């Protein structure tokens, strides 16, 4: 066997060298396999410990981004393709299909919860309110991005109209689409944002996409845009927005459908 002389300290054979190296590499890789799986489910001690970093990340982003720093906006030339739909793209719910059949003439956006004046707004009432149009980049948690032009009513105008009570802390979005089925029944998509993001100038309830009415696959008749967060924070097929002081008693208690399934509540990164 060929021997490599290593500085006269050791004599290590080439085979031993390669064996050692590959054992080292595979040992490290093997530990990636499933050694950690059982400790990572939601609610476990290790998972909860690691999730503390989400709180740190949230506070850092809030501190740096403040209330009103704007997400980058783009030019018409950057709109190079239709907005990619994701998640539910064609709700199978009977009530949704009935509303769609009537071109959403009977659809209403309910504004309820911790407000002085609950609202029930028709599609026409929303489109008659002052609107904002913005060309922004949609970033999916999966890693892809897509640039599109969104038109909608600033959420802050609706909150002002409903007069938010001082104890309200979050806006909860209720949706018409069933995203999941569980033993306790169908789960409709829902999500929450805090009032800072709700009142952000670019946070709109969008009814228009790339100059046309919002298509079904992208959330017709109404979806929210929260431009400083990821796509899962922007529910589609809205039916109700509810002002709440917490969300521990809703769904899995983590503030949204995807949050209940392990995503961080603040989807800023």
């Amino acid at each position, binding site marked *: 066997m060929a021997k490599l002389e*290593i500085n006269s300290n050791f004599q290590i054979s080439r085979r031993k060298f390669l064996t050692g190296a590959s054992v080292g590499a595979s040992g490290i890789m093997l530990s990636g396999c499933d050694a950690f799986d059982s400790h990572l489910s939601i609610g476990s001690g290790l998972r909860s410990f690691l999730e503390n970093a989400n709180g740190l990340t949230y506070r850092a982003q809030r501190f*740096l981004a403040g209330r009103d720093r704007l997400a980058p906006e783009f030019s018409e030339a950057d709109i190079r393709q239709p907005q990619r739909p994701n998640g539910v793209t064609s709700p199978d719910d009977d009530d949704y299909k009935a509303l769609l059949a009537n071109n959403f003439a009977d659809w209403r956006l309910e504004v309820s919860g911790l407000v002085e004046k609950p609202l029930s707004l028709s599609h026409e009432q929303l489109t008659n309110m002052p609107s904002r149009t913005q060309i922004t980049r949609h970033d999916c948690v999966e890693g892809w*991005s897509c640039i599109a032009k969104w038109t909608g009513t600033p959420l802050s105008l609706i909150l002002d109209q409903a007069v938010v009570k001082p104890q309200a802390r979050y806006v909860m979005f209720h949706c018409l689409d069933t995203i999941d089925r569980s033993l306790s029944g169908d789960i409709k998509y829902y999500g929450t944002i805090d009032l800072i993001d709700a009142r952000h100038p670019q946070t709109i309830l969008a009814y228009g996409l790339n100059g046309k009415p919002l298509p079904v696959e992208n959330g017709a008749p109404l979806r929210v845009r929260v431009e400083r967060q990821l796509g899962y924070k922007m529910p589609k097929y809205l039916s109700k927005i509810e002002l709440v002081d917490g969300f521990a008693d809703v769904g899995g208690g983590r503030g949204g459908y995807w949050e209940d399934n392990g995503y961080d509540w603040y989807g800023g990164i």
Partner: protein
Amino acid sequence: MESVARSQSDTGPGVPASTERPLIYRQSRWTRLTHWLWAISLFFMLLSGLQIFNARPQLYIGKQSGFGYDNTIFEIGAENTSAGPRGYTAIFGHRFDTTGVLGWSGPPGNETARGFPSWATIPSYYDLGTARVIHFFFAWILTTTLIVWLIASLINGHIRRDLAPRIDDIKRLPQDVANHIRLKFHHTREYNTLQKLAYGGVLFVLLPLMIITGLAMSPSMNSVLPFLNDLLGGRQTARTIHFTVMVLLVGFFIIHILMILAAGPINELRSIITGWYRTDPPAHDDKTAERSA
């Protein structure tokens, strides 16, 4: 790390104690502590990062991902062929069959379509949410460690004394490359030229670039630092750079481990655990050894 320790005992007894081969204090506690924090962080960030990548196993160039046009430069996927499902990897349009590792992998008879295989991801099953929790937890550790190291190494002189390449280092580069190829190492207090370039490259180029491209992917941070993506060429280019730097760091890790095994793992491990390093005999002996080798 466990396996490194195992190969240590495989290589037989350590360096014989000798007054001619003095033990010197080579690595400060800051260097040692930060080294192991990085090792742990990078391990978890790599395996959770590969899991995150699996959610969208494509890389693009530009501001957005091309769905209505093609700006994909890298892709891992699976496809049905007449020979059954196959995994493939495509780089700049060149396709390779990577069945069993990339695209299509798993226990025999139970293969599934996934980018990186189960043994290379945490968790082993598909779970983007959990991988993100792990990734961002260790991102804080990694970044904090880098800042602590930078401050400590500026104060204790580690950067100036040990890492900054000098004229002599550049002159010595060809000889140093030749020495490494022949796995011939001089054990001295100082780093050799390639070590300086490798460690400096990781600490001052790769890790900062990793952090910057990571931040550039954050829609929240884009509102704070909107110029970042303009500099980098768009969010999807930033993601592609993030992935490329990962590949370079893995390459560094592999060479780093090979060099440690070749240069004497006990001595190298001792110096990064305790700080103490056994050096070669004084220079005239060293030259004799070099001639006879």
